[in-house]
């Protein structure tokens, strides 16, 4: 039984069983069974690839509706930096922050601000002796989950600092409590404005033993339309951004890397590229590096499935807004010592050997042999008609006993039929 609540869900009504998502899924988590897709939640890493590829809009990410949570006395918006890349002609981040206040939030705490703290502590952490290098960013939950499922050997390379979203939530709550002692714990709610499905899952499920400090997640592409309306009423913002270039830079791929202010880094984006880089690190065939930033989405978080704008356009817009921002507004002295305990986390989902055939080696070997011989009979064209992503995966499904009668190999069946016809 599985209790992990993924945010990527399927609308059975809309799904035609076309198998596009089956073949696109990087962890081979999807099968078409009885005419519609099913996601294996042990394998799903919430990367959103299936949402992107589905022509029928049958896959979506579950988020909360803002209007259902307006009863909280003190509502704090945590805008992801990618939000600022969605507006055409935006000159000043403050206009968006003001927009958030205008649509009903009582306070805004920028995730970009927390990102700058993470950058500052990353620079400190990189100087620690005895740590495993390269240090791999902890910001993209898809990557952290992927590492814990597929690259367990690299788990100690993950930066043991909470992602900016969490630090923002912790700091925002602490600040609200301090400034408004009349408020009780229950009155305050922190709303993360998310570009991505993976963060929704992170917040709902926690991560390993870590429980998220965010209370409500709203989709960036939902709040966008409300914001656009509010921002039309142009008035001088009463709020000023507390982040700089470094924090806003986190929205696109490479931003976190350049902020280590040292050129020994690699950044890659897109789930396929990220998997290749992880393979290379695992095999030890990349040059010595200090830091590796991997973003599951093309372009980084500006490419998240819940954004509005094309990631490259958003990135260019962000460059324009960043142009006149301070380098950073949150930093710690370079000799700050260690990462504060509140920000430290090395909790990851438990490693589950998802590819293991059986927990008994003799049994595994027997199954492996069966898979091999079945594979030889299959056409090897990976057409997907059986509901599995590849002929190899289908052979495995058959041997594992999970491919039912409805999932037959059409090519094989047709061949057999022709043989029969020519014999008689």
């Amino acid at each position: 039984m599985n209790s992990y609540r993924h945010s990527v869900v399927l609308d059975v009504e809309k799904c035609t069983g076309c198998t596009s998502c089956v073949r696109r899924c990087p962890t081979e988590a999807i099968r078409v069974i009885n005419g519609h897709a099913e996601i294996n939640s042990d394998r799903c890493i919430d990367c959103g690839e299936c949402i992107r590829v589905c022509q029928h809009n049958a896959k979506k990410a579950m988020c909360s509706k803002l209007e259902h949570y307006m009863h909280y006395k003190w509502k704090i918006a945590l805008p992801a930096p990618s939000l600022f890349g969605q507006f055409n002609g935006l000159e000043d981040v403050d206009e968006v922050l003001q927009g958030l206040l205008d649509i009903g939030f009582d306070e805004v705490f920028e995730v970009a601000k927390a990102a700058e703290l993470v950058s500052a502590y990353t620079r400190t952490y990189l100087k620690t002796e005895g740590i495993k290098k390269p240090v791999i960013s902890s910001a993209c939950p898809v990557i952290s989950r992927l590492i814990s499922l597929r690259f367990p050997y690299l788990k100690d390379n993950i930066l043991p600092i909470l992602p900016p979203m969490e630090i923002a939530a912790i700091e925002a709550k602490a600040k609200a409590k301090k400034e408004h002692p009349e408020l009780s714990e229950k009155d305050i709610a922190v709303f993360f404005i998310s570009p991505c499905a993976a963060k929704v899952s992170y917040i709902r499920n926690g991560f390993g033993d870590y429980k998220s400090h965010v209370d409500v997640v709203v989709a960036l592409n939902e709040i966008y339309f409300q914001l656009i309306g509010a921002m039309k009423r142009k008035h001088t913002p009463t709020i000023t951004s507390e982040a700089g270039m470094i924090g806003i830079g986190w929205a696109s791929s490479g931003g976190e890397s350049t902020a280590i202010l040292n050129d020994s880094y690699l950044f890659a984006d897109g789930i396929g590229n990220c998997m290749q880089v992880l393979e290379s690190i695992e095999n030890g065939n990349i040059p010595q590096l200090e830091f590796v930033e991997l973003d599951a989405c093309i372009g980084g978080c500006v490419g998240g499935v819940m954004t509005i704008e094309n990631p490259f356009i958003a990135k260019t817009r962000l460059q324009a807004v960043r142009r006149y921002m301070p380098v950073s507004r949150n930093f710690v002295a370079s000799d700050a010592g260690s990462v504060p305990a509140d920000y430290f986390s090395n909790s990851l989902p438990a490693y589950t050997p998802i590819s293991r055939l059986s927990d008994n080696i003799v049994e595994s070997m027997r199954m492996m042999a069966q898979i091999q011989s079945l594979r030889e009979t299959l056409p090897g064209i990976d057409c997907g008609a059986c509901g599995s992503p590849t002929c190899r995966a289908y052979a495995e499904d058959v041997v594992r006993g999970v491919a039912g009668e409805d999932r037959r190999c059409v090519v094989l069946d047709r061949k057999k039929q022709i043989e029969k016809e020519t014999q008689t």
Partner: protein
Amino acid sequence: MGEYLNFHYDVDGENFVSAGQASVELKKTLRRLGLPPETIRRLSIAMYEGEINMVIHAGGGEADVDIYEDKIVIVLKDHGPGIADIALAMQEGYSTATEGVRSLGFGAGMGLPNMKRYTDEMQIDSTVGEGTTVTMTVYLS
């Protein structure tokens, strides 16, 4: 007419990570004074560029912003290496910025030209080996 408000900012040259703070502070002040958004924008950009130049080219300095009824004067003063050829430095695209700051987007050689564009008057006084003083004025109509 001689009445004015002065705002003084120390621009720390040691801490590159914090470069640009003074311009944010100035923007906040100008908003409180209720200046038109376009004027605020011009002044913040000019201040920003000047401030960044002091950090990346001159090891820091000081900024004084004097607000009069009819004009705002920004004076940026540093004790850096000075600018040998001011006309050359004023050319769009001319830059001596290092690789390190370029990765963050600096070094396009657009700072000084922008400062001139966004202000009504700009004067650079510089002596090699002694430092640079940039004075910019924006008139309030």
